[in-house]
């Protein structure tokens, strides 16, 4: 009688033993040296019954045995995530494992895998940890990793009854999900192989903005003039013009055949809407490739985002002198620059606004021997050098200027404070300048070098060095002006920050 019982018992033990060995044998290939080596094992794991998964999880839960199961499950989850059916089945297997394992390593590992797997079938198991102090955080983050409405709903439900410290962790996870909403797993990139004609049809047939953006994105990968033309119409659409601008820039930069007056004008229109991580590089490339003219609001010497943030505003944007008054006939806008035409008599050009304390930045280009000046805190009439202040503009190196007084050279507060010489580029090249004045403290910077820093009150307290009257030194506020003295000088990219 006893032998009758022992035999089947022995048989069952042997069978169980065989199953354990099979699991260990299957996962012996991990870690694989070549991913193809693992294919048979992954196939076998797909066929595992609950009993085999159970054995597997025992190994994962045992410190001395957990290395290979960790590798195996890592590879298995990676493969399963690509197949909808297998993904669901695996999520259920891992969920079962979570009810079985006891140690921190295995629980933490399985919770993380469910997040990577990304299937709703794992939500129930993850939910069960949302009240556990040790695992609520990692479970919440895995729920976020599933990127589905059901997962978000599960988090919200748990949040409603949660207490600190778990409440804050759930809220943080929900915040992350909200800030990084990801579209549900899209169908195969629907438009990748579409022709321009097909894309045009698709665009006409949809009103869903993300879909429209996908269509535009696909069109931007068609590298020809036809798609360029198609995309340029979307510059007029406030929702799509950002994407359109970036796409037009890339197309034009990548294809020398996309050129011409229409292209240039659409790129000029697109320019202000360049956006995203590459906008600075795209802007610069467009200017360097001569696809866009450097007008007042473009790349080099522009209102940068830093300047915008700091409160600078444009005084001259390269297209008009609307903010200026006085000799608008003799200061003409050409190629984005303000050009002095000395042959047209008419006096000085002044800002309509008045400025007291400010940082004023601009660029200027001298012709050989040129003489001009920036009036500051000036009235609209009179000689700004004396009734206001003049910051000299001068071709320092011209022969006729070699014996001037030190306070007559470029950048000097004319007659009052001399500036350093030697920092101007040769005539015909653009220089940068910044005039910064606050109270009686004034600083002039040319091509990045501070050539003057001083105090007007100090410099004039015992009379000015030119021994002339400078009532303008006492004016707290006034216009900024261009004080022509009969030479061609060009200015551009003027922006000012009132202090």
């Amino acid at each position, binding site marked *: 009688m006893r032998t009758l019982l022992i035999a089947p018992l022995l048989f069952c033990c042997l069978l169980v033993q065989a199953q354990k060995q099979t699991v260990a044998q299957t996962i012996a290939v991990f870690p694989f040296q070549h991913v193809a080596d693992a294919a048979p094992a992954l196939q076998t794991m797909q066929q595992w019954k609950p009993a085999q998964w159970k054995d597997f999880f025992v190994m994962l839960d045992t410190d001395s045995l957990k290395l290979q199961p960790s590798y195996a499950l890592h590879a298995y989850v990676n493969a399963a995530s690509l197949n909808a059916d297998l993904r669901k089945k695996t999520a259920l297997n891992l969920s079962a494992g979570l009810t079985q394992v006891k140690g921190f390593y295995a629980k933490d590992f399985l919770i993380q895998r469910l997040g990577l797997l990304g299937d709703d079938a794992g939500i129930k198991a993850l939910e069960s940890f949302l009240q556990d102090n040790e695992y609520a955080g990692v479970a919440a983050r895995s729920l976020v990793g599933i990127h589905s409405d059901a997962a978000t709903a599960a988090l919200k439900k748990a949040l409603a009854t949660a207490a600190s410290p778990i409440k804050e962790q759930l809220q943080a996870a929900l915040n992350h999900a909200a800030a990084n909403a990801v579209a549900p797993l899209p169908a195969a990139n629907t438009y990748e192989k579409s022709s321009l004609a097909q894309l045009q049809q698709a665009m006409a047939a949809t009103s869903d903005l993300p879909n429209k953006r996908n269509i535009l994105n696909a069109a931007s990968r068609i590298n020809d003039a036809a798609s360029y033309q198609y995309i340029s119409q979307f510059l007029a659409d406030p929702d799509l013009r950002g994407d359109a601008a970036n796409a037009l820039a890339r197309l034009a930069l990548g294809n020398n055949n996309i050129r011409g007056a229409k292209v240039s004008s659409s790129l000029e229109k697109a320019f202000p809407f360049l956006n995203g*991580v590459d906008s600075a590089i795209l802007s610069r490339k467009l200017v360097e490739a*001569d696809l866009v003219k450097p007008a007042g609001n473009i790349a080099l010497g522009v209102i940068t985002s830093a300047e915008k943030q700091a409160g600078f505003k444009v005084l001259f944007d390269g297209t008009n002198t609307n903010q200026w008054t006085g000799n608008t006939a003799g200061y003409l806008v050409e190629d984005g620059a303000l050009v002095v035409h000395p042959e047209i008599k008419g006096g000085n050009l002044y800002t309509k606004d008045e400025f007291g304390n400010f940082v004023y930045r601009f660029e200027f280009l001298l012709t050989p021997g040129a003489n001009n000046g920036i009036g500051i805190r000036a009235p609209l009439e009179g000689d700004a050098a004396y009734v206001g202040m003049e910051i000299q503009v001068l071709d320092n190196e011209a022969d006729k200027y070699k014996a001037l007084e030190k306070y007559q050279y470029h950048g000097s507060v004319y007659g009052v404070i001399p500036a350093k010489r030697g920092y101007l580029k040769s005539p015909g090249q653009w220089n940068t300048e910044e005039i910064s004045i606050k109270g009686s403290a004034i600083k002039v910077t040319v091509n990045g070098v501070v050539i003057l820093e001083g105090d007007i009150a100090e410099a004039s307290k015992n009379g000015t060095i030119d021994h002339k009257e400078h009532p303008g030194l006492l004016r707290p506020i006034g216009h900024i002006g261009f004080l022509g003295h009969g030479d061609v000088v060009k200015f551009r990219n003027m922006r000012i920050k009132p202090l």
Partner: protein
Amino acid sequence: MWLIVFYHGTCFFAILYYYNCTAFLANQNATFTIMQDSNSNKSNSRRKFLRNAAAIAAGISIVPRHVLGRGFIPPSDQITKGIIGVGGMGRGHIPYAGTRVVAVCDVDSKHLVQAAQMVGGNIKTFHDHRELIALPEVDIVHIATPPHWHGIMAIDAAKAGKDIWCEKPMTRTIGEGKRVVEAIRQYGNMFRLNTWFRFEDNFYGMNTTVKPIKKLVESGMLGWPLTVTVSKTTGFDWKFYWVGKTQLETQAVPAELDYDRWLGPAPYKPYNAHRVHGTFRGYWDYDGGGLGDMGQHYIDPIQYFLGKDDTSPVKVEVDAEQQHPDACGTFRKITYTYADGCKIILDGEAKDPNTAYIEGPNGKLFNGFKSTIPNLKEKLALLPDPTPQVTDFLESVKYRKPFALNESNGFRSCTIINMGKIALQLGRTLEFDPVKQEFINDAEANSMINPAMRYPWTL
């Protein structure tokens, strides 16, 4: 003649060696971004300008740039810095020229004491980086922590209005990188990475700076598209000793280390000394092995000389041993392909001694700047130099001009590293959309772009 100029209240000064005053002054002009001559739309005149600027600049290479920071500014006028993370790399930031350390921060109190002693004087020490960032007397924040903290600290520093000098790799994930770029744009800070080969220094086994490589590529002499191979044969060493350990036993946290704060946003894993202080490079939670450590040094100049600073590869393929989910391993080959057919191959095996560094349909460039093109050096000398860039971060800080390697191009080259890390961990080929910056048809890969952070840390 020595000419020392020094202004109260400003940080600007100049030191002229007695070789060539005007050349130095011209160099000042040449180091700024180019001024477009609006009179000419022809590339010829721009090239002439660049050539002139380059010729002038070349004449003053004898004035070392780092000299411009030394010794003649009174300490009270110097630009200041605070360093977060003063382990090995962080303490290396202390002597960077032209700035004065006023504060250091670390979660290891021994490192903090060591750093404070190195700097000397009355510097402030902190445990919490947010306190350092809030100091009004700090101009530049140096971030020298492991990569998993870079995103949070860069964004915190940006919000506080500080300029930022960040260790490479820029961020541990693509998602954090995007957020850093957004924050810098919003708050208008100057940002630089701590890699520099695109604009200076001997580029490893090439034995030249990157400049002649850039000129060669732009000249078209090699043709297009190009394949660039980064391996021991072509002059670059993949530091595969940065592998993690797979069977870490739990150890007691040493008294001087705040391990919870060290982990920060990274998932909780029981302490083992191999996770921290140098060997953190071997773990996916904090970095990315040899790829993460050296990748940006090697790959950033490639994006630069291929002219691809505004894009990313569209495909990444990996050939490697299986990566452990926690510990980084090694790789045999990682291949990136761009939409126009250019490739970057990271070759960890270096089997073929004849591999070219750059190979194109019309020519090859090898280790040591040897080439299949005859008289290459003479031909390159006739070509204009690349667009000058701002290569002194203090210039960026003072005059608000974007640095040569900033948040935009740094993000793009770091994205290549991070794409590679994801492909390695998943063990499969991935396709990437460089405009949307997402993987195509791979939800698991996409969920690794911006994973949620451990409470209470968030971007």
